[in-house]
């Protein structure tokens, strides 16, 4: 019983981690957007005041302090060498990224909509035999399924699992993969060789084969999620390691080393900010790929939780797709919309920070 409880608990965490991660990411982005310009501004002012106190600059060079400007955001800071923050946000203002993010937000919020109606699972929705397989209409925008349920609500409900687990897997593998990749690229030597050898071995295993195997052996989807995370870690680690190796050769890292900065300082202040866009883009692409994989596995009906793929499988298996096209087309369309939104954000981020990406 404790094992079962633990598994259910872990599964719930994975299910909710996606939505949680989004809320956290949104809050983090807001905090970052507020705090960094302010910090830069006040750091500059503090430095100026110190210089003024020591008589190194004239009082005319120091801008007057604005009273109570904490709530006012000023992205057009003209700080020499430190205006990366403003340019960071301005580079992200691309239609593909913004539309993609909006679509993802809409899907995430939409997947909570049935919860407000009191449906936690698709099984909670009442069976209405009279409503069976109704074509799309204003009352039922996506039609109804073989049990007479509103298909839009069913699809939105299953989106919670698909999106949540995909984002959760991506979050875990991004954090672990970035950490391991930075360490590999920065430390090099024996550690790098051993770890990247292991990860190369992992990434050379065919993922479908390995996932079937794990599900067949352990019978739980939680371990499958772990396996997905490990594959993601291998991929992220490879990309991050290559980028760290490239960044290490730049002069600013050498200068930071020459100034006596410790390894931690160099990693935190010089390597990680340069990796931010790459990691973000790659993790979004990983989300898309995980979503596709989850839907394929759901189509094969080997997961213990339903995804959009299992709706397609149900429609195909019961031959409903021959007469009622909406039972298979709408889940497919939902997969397409979600995955292409995630991909467009990821590729947009990668492209806007890599001038050589074609």
């Amino acid at each position, binding site marked *: 019983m404790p094992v079962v409880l633990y598994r259910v608990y872990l599964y719930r965490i994975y299910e909710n981690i996606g939505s949680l991660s989004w809320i956290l990411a949104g809050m983090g982005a807001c905090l970052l957007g507020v705090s960094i310009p302010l910090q830069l501004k006040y750091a500059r002012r503090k430095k100026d005041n110190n210089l003024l106190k020591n008589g190194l600059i004239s009082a005319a060079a120091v801008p007057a302090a604005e009273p109570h400007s904490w709530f006012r955001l000023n992205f057009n800071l003209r700080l020499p060498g430190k205006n990366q923050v403003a340019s960071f946000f301005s580079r992200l203002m691309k239609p593909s990224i913004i539309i993609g993010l909006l679509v993802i937000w809409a899907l995430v919020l939409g997947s909570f909509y049935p919860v407000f109606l009191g449906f936690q699972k698709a099984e909670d929705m009442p069976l209405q035999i009279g409503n069976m397989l109704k074509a799309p209409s204003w009352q039922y925008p996506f039609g109804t399924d073989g049990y007479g349920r509103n298909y839009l609500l069913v699809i939105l409900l299953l989106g919670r699992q698909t999106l949540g687990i995909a984002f959760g897997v991506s979050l875990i593998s991004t954090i672990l993969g970035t950490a391991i990749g930075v360490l590999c690229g920065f430390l090099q030597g024996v550690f790098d060789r051993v770890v990247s050898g292991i990860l190369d071995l992992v990434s050379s295993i065919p993922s479908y084969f390995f996932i079937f195997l794990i599900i067949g052996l352990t019978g739980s989807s939680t371990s499958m999620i772990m396996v997905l995370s490990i594959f993601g870690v291998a991929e992220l680690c490879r990309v991050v390691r290559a980028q760290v190796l490239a960044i290490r050769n730049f002069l600013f890292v050498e200068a930071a080393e020459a100034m006596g900065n410790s390894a931690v300082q160099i990693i935190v202040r010089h390597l990680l900010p340069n990796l931010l866009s790459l990691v973000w883009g790659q993790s979004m692409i990983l989300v898309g790929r995980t979503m596709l994989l989850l839907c394929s596995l759901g189509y094969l009906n080997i997961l213990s939780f339903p995804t959009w793929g299992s709706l397609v499988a149900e429609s195909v298996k019961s031959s409903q*797709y021959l007469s009622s096209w909406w039972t298979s*087309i709408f889940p497919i369309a939902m997969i397409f919309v979600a995955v292409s939104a995630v991909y467009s954000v990821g590729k947009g981020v990668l492209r806007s920070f890599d001038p050589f990406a074609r």
Partner: protein
Amino acid sequence: MYGYLIRRFLTVLLLMWVMTVIIFGLASISGGGVDRLFPVNAVTPFDIVRHKGINETDTSPAQQYFTWLKNVFWGNFGNIASFRGDTVFDSVSEKLIPMFNASLLLVGTALLFLVILGFLLGTFAAVKPDHIATKIINFFCMVNTSIPDFAIAIILMMVFAVRLRLLPSSGMSDPLLYESNFWQHFLDRLRHLILPAITLSFTYVASFTEHVRKTISGILQQDYIRTARAKGLSGRIVLSKHALRNGLVPCLAAVFEC
């Protein structure tokens, strides 16, 4: 060069050996033997041993593994057990050959389709990056990467087999075409091949097109292409003799990746 080849060959051998160990280990862990599946009185100890594909004298896992490896090396993949009043064994190898032929036909056709389409689209997108057709190709690739492969199969089946009734939705040949000449059989096979081959190749055509486009557009920025242009060669000759020939090797590597 030879040292590199030998090293690669040894790596492949090592990898294959590791795979055999993994597969044998998993097969022996996974259970599901005849003693569990069939009625007890229909299964003798000899059946169990025979189903596992080992000798009766093999007791330790290592011995069983070597027997199994020897059998696999000589093309004996063990037996499938089925229950028809009594436990009956059929050789896996004999069942495998027609399946292998069918897969080979399907994969070969899909690969041919993939290579032709990928090369055409990728080269066009690389040569004319601002053309409106290139934008259509990019959109097609985007759609293709974000739709799962089973969805393509279902949509094609719904359109061509169910709605339009042009092509068959399953099977390899029409059983009603029993007495007919070679060409009718050939066309029938072709009709059955179209949908699965398109589905199989569509799962990879986007990534392959992207790869070809990146390779060719990288080559087109090289110095020797500019030299060839400066010599006064026409764009078509530069493309076919200088760019495509150099792009062939990395693109072929990508084909094998698919």
